[in-house]
C-alpha cells in the first residue's frame, strides 16, 4: 500500500479520502487555503500545508505549490478528489514528472477524454454508441437532410461556433429540415459570423445514466453497475440513485459492455465514470467520461459493497484488482441526496454562514458524508454542498422511505439548506415512478418551491397567530 498521500482538495471529498487513508494505515497531508484553516479535513489529516488565500485560483489550483508541498512532506502520491485539478492533464503530467503518483488515470487518458471531439471519435472507433450525427460541418441543406434521414428524426441542427442555444434548430421530419437548416445557419452567421452548422440526433426525454468503472494498471477493467443522475438543476446533480430503476437487464448488459469498452479504449486506470444519455426508447449514447471519483460514488459503494476510494488507493499503489466482475452483485437500492447551503425559495442562491446547530441521521443503511459540525462556517468561496446523505434499502421503496426518514432526522440551523426541497422530491409522483428524465427539475421543481414557500409563510403566520393567542390567553 501507499505510505503517505497528499490530498489536493477540500470539503467532504477531502475528508472521504483522509478517512479512507486512515482506515488503511496511510499517512495524510492536506493542502488548504486560508479560508479552510478551521475545516474538519485540516483537523483530521496528519499534516497540513497552507498553500494560499481563499480564492481557488490562488490556492487549490496552484499546481506548483501543491507539488512542492507533496515533495517537502514526503508524499508518494496525490489524490485530487473531484473538481479543482482532478481532470487537469497538465497537473497529472506534473505529478508524473515529479515522481509523484497521481491517483487517477494517466495524463494522456485525461487529455483524451477531456477533448470532447477526440473522445467521441475514440469511442466511436471502440464501438461505443455516440450521439449519431454529421461528425463535422455539413456543407448544404440537402447533405444535411440526407444525414438526418439516415440517423432518424428528430434531429438538432447546431452552429459549429455556437453556444447558448443560438444557431440551433430542431427538425422533427424531412419536411421541416430544409427550413430549419437555413434558419439555423442564418442565425449562426449573424450571431457568430460563421454560418457553419452540423447535424446531431436529438435524444428525446433523455435520462442521465452513468456506469462506474474500476481499472488497474494491468488492463483489468470491471464495472460496478449504473447510476441514474437525471435529477439535475442547471447541470448540477441533486439526487442520484443506483441502480437505475426499471431498466431491462439486456439494456444493462449493453450499457456495461459499452462502459468497459470506453475505459479500455483510453487505457484507463483507477476509478472513472462513463456517462450516457438514454432516450425514452432505452437507446443510449456516450456523452463523456469523468476521469475521477464522483460526488455520487457512495450510492455505488452501498449497493455493491465495493469501496471505491479504497480501490483507487490500491490501484495507485500498483496492486492488481482484487475483485472480479463476477464478484459484483447489486444488492438492493441506494439513493444520495446532496444537501447544499442554498435557499431553494430564492432561486437556490448560495447562502454561506455559520452552522449554529447540526444533527445528522444514523442507524442501519444510512451514511453521512459531511464536514460540518456545530459552529462550522460555510465559506462563500467554494461549492455550496455541505453534506451528502446516502441510504440503502432492500428495495427502491424501502430506500425512498429510509431517505425520507433520514432527511426528517437531519437538523441544520443557521443557514438555509436544500433539505426541504430534497424531501419534496422524495414525495413527488414522477420521482416515485422512477422513470423521470433530465427535464424533471424544470418541470417539477417550481411547484415544489411554491409549496415550500407557502408552507414557510403559512408556518410563519401560524406561529404569529399562536403567539398572539398565547398573549391574549394571558
Amino acid at each position, binding site marked *: 500500500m501507499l505510505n503517505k498521500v497528499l490530498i489536493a482538495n477540500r470539503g467532504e471529498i477531502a475528508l472521504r479520502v483522509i478517512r479512507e487513508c486512515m482506515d488503511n494505515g496511510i499517512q495524510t497531508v492536506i493542502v488548504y487555503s*486560508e479560508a479552510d484553516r478551521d475545516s474538519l479535513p485540516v483537523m483530521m489529516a496528519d499534516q497540513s*500545508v497552507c498553500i*494560499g*488565500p481563499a480564492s481557488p485560483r490562488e490556492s487549490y489550483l*496552484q499546481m*506548483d505549490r*501543491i*507539488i*512542492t508541498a507533496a515533495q*517537502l512532506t514526503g508524499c508518494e502520491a496525490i489524490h485530487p478528489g473531484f473538481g479543482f485539478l482532478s481532470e487537469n492533464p497538465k497537473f497529472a503530467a506534473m505529478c508524473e514528472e515529479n515522481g509523484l503518483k497521481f491517483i487517477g488515470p494517466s495524463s494522456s487518458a485525461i487529455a483524451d477524454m477531456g477533448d470532447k471531439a477526440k473522445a467521441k471519435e475514440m469511442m466511436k472507433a471502440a464501438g461505443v454508441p455516440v450521439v449519431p450525427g454529421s461528425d463535422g460541418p455539413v456543407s448544404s441543406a440537402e447533405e444535411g437532410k440526407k444525414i438526418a434521414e439516415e440517423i432518424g428524426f428528430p434531429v438538432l441542427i447546431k452552429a459549429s461556433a455556437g453556444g447558448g442555444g443560438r444557431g440551433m434548430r430542431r427538425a422533427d421530419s424531412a419536411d421541416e429540415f430544409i427550413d430549419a437548416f437555413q434558419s439555423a445557419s442564418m442565425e449562426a452567421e449573424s450571431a457568430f459570423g460563421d454560418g457553419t452548422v452540423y447535424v446531431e440526433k436529438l435524444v428525446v426525454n433523455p435520462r442521465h445514466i452513468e456506469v462506474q468503472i474500476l481499472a488497474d494498471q494491468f488492463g483489468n477493467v470491471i464495472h460496478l453497475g449504473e447510476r441514474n443522475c437525471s435529477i439535475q438543476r442547471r447541470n448540477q446533480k441533486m439526487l442520484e440513485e443506483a441502480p437505475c430503476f426499471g431498466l431491462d437487464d439486456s439494456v444493462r448488459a449493453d450499457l456495461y459492455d459499452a462502459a468497459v469498452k470506453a475505459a479500455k479504449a483510453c487505457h484507463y486506470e483507477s476509478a472513472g465514470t462513463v456517462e450516457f444519455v438514454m432516450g425514452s426508447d432505452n437507446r443510449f449514447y456516450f456523452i463523456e467520461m469523468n476521469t475521477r471519483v464522483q460526488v455520487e460514488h457512495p450510492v455505488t459503494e452501498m449497493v455493491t459493497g465495493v469501496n471505491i476510494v479504497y480501490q483507487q488507493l490500491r490501484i495507485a499503489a500498483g496492486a492488481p484488482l482484487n475483485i472480479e466482475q463476477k464478484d459484483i452483485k447489486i444488492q438492493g437500492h441506494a439513493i444520495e441526496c446532496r444537501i447544499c447551503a442554498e435557499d431553494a425559495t430564492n432561486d437556490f442562491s448560495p447562502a454561506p454562514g455559520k452552522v449554529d446547530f447540526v444533527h445528522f441521521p444514523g442507524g442501519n443503511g444510512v451514511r453521512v458524508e459531511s464536514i460540518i459540525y456545530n459552529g462550522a462556517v460555510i465559506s462563500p468561496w467554494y461549492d455550496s454542498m455541505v453534506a451528502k446523505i446516502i441510504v440503502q434499502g432492500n428495495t427502491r421503496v424501502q430506500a425512498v422511505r429510509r431517505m425520507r426518514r433520514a432527511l426528517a432526522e437531519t437538523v441544520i440551523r443557521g443557514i438555509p439548506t436544500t433539505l426541504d426541497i430534497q424531501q419534496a422530491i422524495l414525495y413527488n409522483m414522477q420521482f416515485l415512478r422512477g422513470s423521470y428524465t433530465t427535464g424533471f427539475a424544470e418541470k417539477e421543481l417550481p411547484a415544489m418551491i411554491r409549496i415550500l414557500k407557502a408552507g414557510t409563510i403559512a408556518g410563519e403566520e401560524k406561529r404569529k397567530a399562536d403567539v398572539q393567542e398565547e398573549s391574549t390567553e394571558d
Partner: protein
Amino acid sequence: MESMDMFKEVLSDFNHSDLVSLQVEMPGLKLSLTRGSAAPQPTGTASVDPANVSAPAADTKAVASAGAAAVSAQNSGEVKAPAKTENEEHYEPIQCPLVGVFYSAASPDAEPFVKEGQKVKEGDVLCIIEAMKAMNELKAPYDLIVRKVCMENGDMAEFHQVLFEVEKC
C-alpha cells in the same frame, strides 16, 4: 466556560443585536460594551462605565483591548492571536508568498543573507524560497531592520508563514 469564550459569545451576541450598550457580570466575566455609531452617549455621568469606550464594535480586536472595562481573562483558552506587546507592535511580518523550502543563504557555506539586528535596504535579498526546483529570491519590500528570523535554514515554509519579523525604517 472560560472567560475568553464567554467574552467572545457575549460580544458576538452584542454584535448581532441592535443594542446600544450592554453591561454584564457573571462568574469570570464583567463586561461593559457600548456601540459607538453616531449616537451621542450620555455625558456628565459619574458611573460612566459604558460611555467612553469608543471602539466601534465591528473590529473584534479593538474591543478586546477596550481599556477601561473588564476582560481580564485574555490568556485563557485558545487565544490564537495573543495581543502584542508594546514593542512588538512595531514589528511587521514578512510572509512567505508561496510554498517551498526556506534558505537563509545562497549556498550551504555562504553567510546568511540577513541576520537579526541587520539593517536592510528595499530590494535586498532576505532569503531564497525553493519551489519546483526554482530558486525564488525574496526581497525586502522596504527599508527595514530584521528583528527576528523565524525559520531555520532548510525548513518548509507554508503560504503566508511568517519568515521574518522586521522593523520598518
